């Protein structure tokens, strides 16, 4: 008779862990990793969307072309993405942190939920509705000019929201901010909830001001959440598509808002050059990985103990 092999409890638990994780690993492998590898493979071919013929292997030509052929405009897209990400990332992280601290410290849980829903609403509004609203606001006779001219006392000035390149960039950042700030506020409020209240009580007994509590307790202990939010926010900013697409579809000039994702879309869908579009998406993927790692190292979120 075969002797039953003894397995330690840790090993048993690990097996259970694998059991529970395998479905999600399979899911990720099929829906995330496989497309990435397929994109890398496709980027080495001159693949056209509609062609039924086997695509020609072109090696790194797609990568070389996107960096050397000015007509493709990929370097302009990198610039547009960098401007947009820089312009949207800092306001999003800073204001979502400030708003969440404000709401968390001043309102009870039920009111916090209402604020969260309110902030989050724009993220679930359909793109068509959002487009209509914003295009009405930024029409030369729309609310945008009226409000700004009233505040600045500059009647009759057309700020050319959607036709001036700088204004157009500002407007896309503003719409993006409006749409997604709620998401980061929800994350920050959740993070704030994990900081033990006793720390604040002890600090107040010791005479700490609100600002001191924020600087000495909230900020350091919120590092993991700040790290998560900033990495997510950076990735989202680099991947931005729908806001720019919305304005482009409404007749705005393409060049100032031709971010990488929009460039990938036009290359792959409009121009049908899926191999080249894959090369662009691999570059974007690499940029996101490198920047995210750099950011995690910079924040050093593991260095927290309480």
């Amino acid at each position, binding site marked *: 008779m075969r002797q039953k092999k003894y397995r330690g409890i840790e090993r048993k638990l690990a097996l259970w862990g694998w059991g529970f994780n395998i479905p999600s690993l399979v899911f990720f492998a099929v829906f995330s990793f496989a497309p990435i590898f397929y994109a890398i493979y496709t980027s080495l071919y001159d693949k056209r969307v509609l062609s039924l013929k086997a695509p020609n292997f072109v090696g790194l030509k797609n990568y070389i072309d996107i960096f050397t052929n000015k007509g493709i405009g990929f370097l302009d897209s990198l610039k547009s993405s960098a401007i947009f990400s820089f312009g949207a990332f800092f306001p999003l992280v800073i204001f979502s942190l400030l708003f969440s601290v404000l709401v968390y410290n001043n309102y009870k849980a039920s009111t916090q939920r209402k604020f969260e829903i309110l902030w989050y609403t724009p993220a679930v509004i359909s793109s068509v509705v959002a487009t209509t609203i914003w295009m009405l606001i930024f*029409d030369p006779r729309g609310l945008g000019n009226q409000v700004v001219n009233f505040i600045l006392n500059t009647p009759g000035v057309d700020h050319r929201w959607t036709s001036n390149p700088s204004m157009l960039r500002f407007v896309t950042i503003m719409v993006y901010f409006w749409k997604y700030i709620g998401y980061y506020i929800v994350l920050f409020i959740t993070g704030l909830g994990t900081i033990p209240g006793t720390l604040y009580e002890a600090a107040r007994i010791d005479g700490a001001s609100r600002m001191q509590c924020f600087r000495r307790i909230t900020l350091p202990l919120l590092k993991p959440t700040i790290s998560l939010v900033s990495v997510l926010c950076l990735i989202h900013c680099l991947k931005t598509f729908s806001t720019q697409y919305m304005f482009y579809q409404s007749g705005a*000039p393409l060049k100032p808002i031709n971010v990488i994702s929009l460039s990938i879309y*036009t290359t792959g869908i409009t121009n049908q050059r899926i191999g080249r579009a894959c090369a662009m998406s691999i570059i974007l993927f690499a940029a996101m990985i490198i920047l995210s790692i750099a950011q995690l190292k910079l924040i050093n979120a593991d260095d927290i103990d309480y």
Partner: protein
Amino acid sequence: MKRLFAVLLVLVVAAAIVSAAGAPEAAPKADEPITLRYWTHEDANRQAFEDELIAEFQKTHPNVTIEHTVVPTKKRAELIQTAFAANNGPDIFTMPIEDAYQYILDGRVTPVDYAVFGAKDAKDLAGQYLGTTMSPATVEGDIYGVPLEITNYGLYVNKRVFRDAGLDADKDYPKTWEDLLTLSEKICKYDGQILTVRAVDFNYDHCFVQFQSLIEQMGGKILSDDGKEAIVGEEAWLRFFRMMHEFGPAGKNYASPSYTYARKLFNAANGDIAMAFIGLYQVPRILKDNPEFYNSGDWMIVPFPKMAEAKESDPRSCYLSQYYYVNAQSSPAAQKAAWEFLAFCQSKPEEYLGRGGSVIQPRKSVLESAVLDTLPYSNVVLDGLAESKASYCEGGAKEIEALFLAALTDVMDVGVSPEEAYKTLKEGAQAVIDEL
């Protein structure tokens, strides 16, 4: 024994696969159930009419079921392309030829089944249609689609806005592009810098249809005759971009691609806009949206303007060609049924012109249609069609058109110099042509 069994099993399966692959496809049976997926863009009037046609066709072809899917016009190209990329395209679809040209080159759509249309060959079929309206869909002697609609633009004029500017629309309407520029200055009104009454709206979705004739009248071309050089005739292109710069906010601010599309604004007739370039299909939409304006006699359609220097023989404008296509990957039975359905649709051009949304299916019989008498200014549009040619739709058309639109917005909105815009467009378009 087990190994022998396994070898035998493999041999049997392989033989089955080989014989199945090599077997000739069974001929379709007449009563074999067929489901056709038909995807087209939105047009409420046409949709309702085509639903009726489908019901009527299904009565005479009980084995055929047609699933009619209407997709948003701006999403159509990507939806259909994505479906084809997955080898799951619709059996029948509609698309402008410049979008569909690559489908033809890549063998994704099938040539017309001429016999179903009662034609001997491509030439015979083309003879059933007006002028050269079938030539855009003709590649290497075969025709790959039948026209859903051929659209040339007329210039819709709101007489009230002309009157407010102290003009008589019937006399003062623009005959030339130079007139259009001069009139725009008289019509536009501003509150400070803010444009409150707009002179004109161009159709930027189809830049070639809107502007190609104007550029050609000045001596420019999109592609040289030998097909090797893109954006030919520097002086003509520069003159064109200088003119468009004047129209745009970076110039005198009469019009802009970023302003609200005028198709709906024109119907509202609230004094916002004086003129807009639109196809004949707009006529029933004015009636539907604003019957008071429709019946007021305060609007009209005038011919598409030409450049003052244009020769009599120069095409007045370009037309947009939208065709029905049949998926080459559909089964032979489905292809046959699809062409039969399309032949049935093509037998009703008068009805398409009437309750089908005022779309022009250029069958020769359409010119004698009584429906024309009920459609105001249809003679202006059809006369314009006779003087027009197909817009550029061949290799790389879609990419070049996108580059053209980018150059146009750069000049009109951003204030990029015409010289710079021309250079960028020329380089980009040449790269597209070189890569074909």
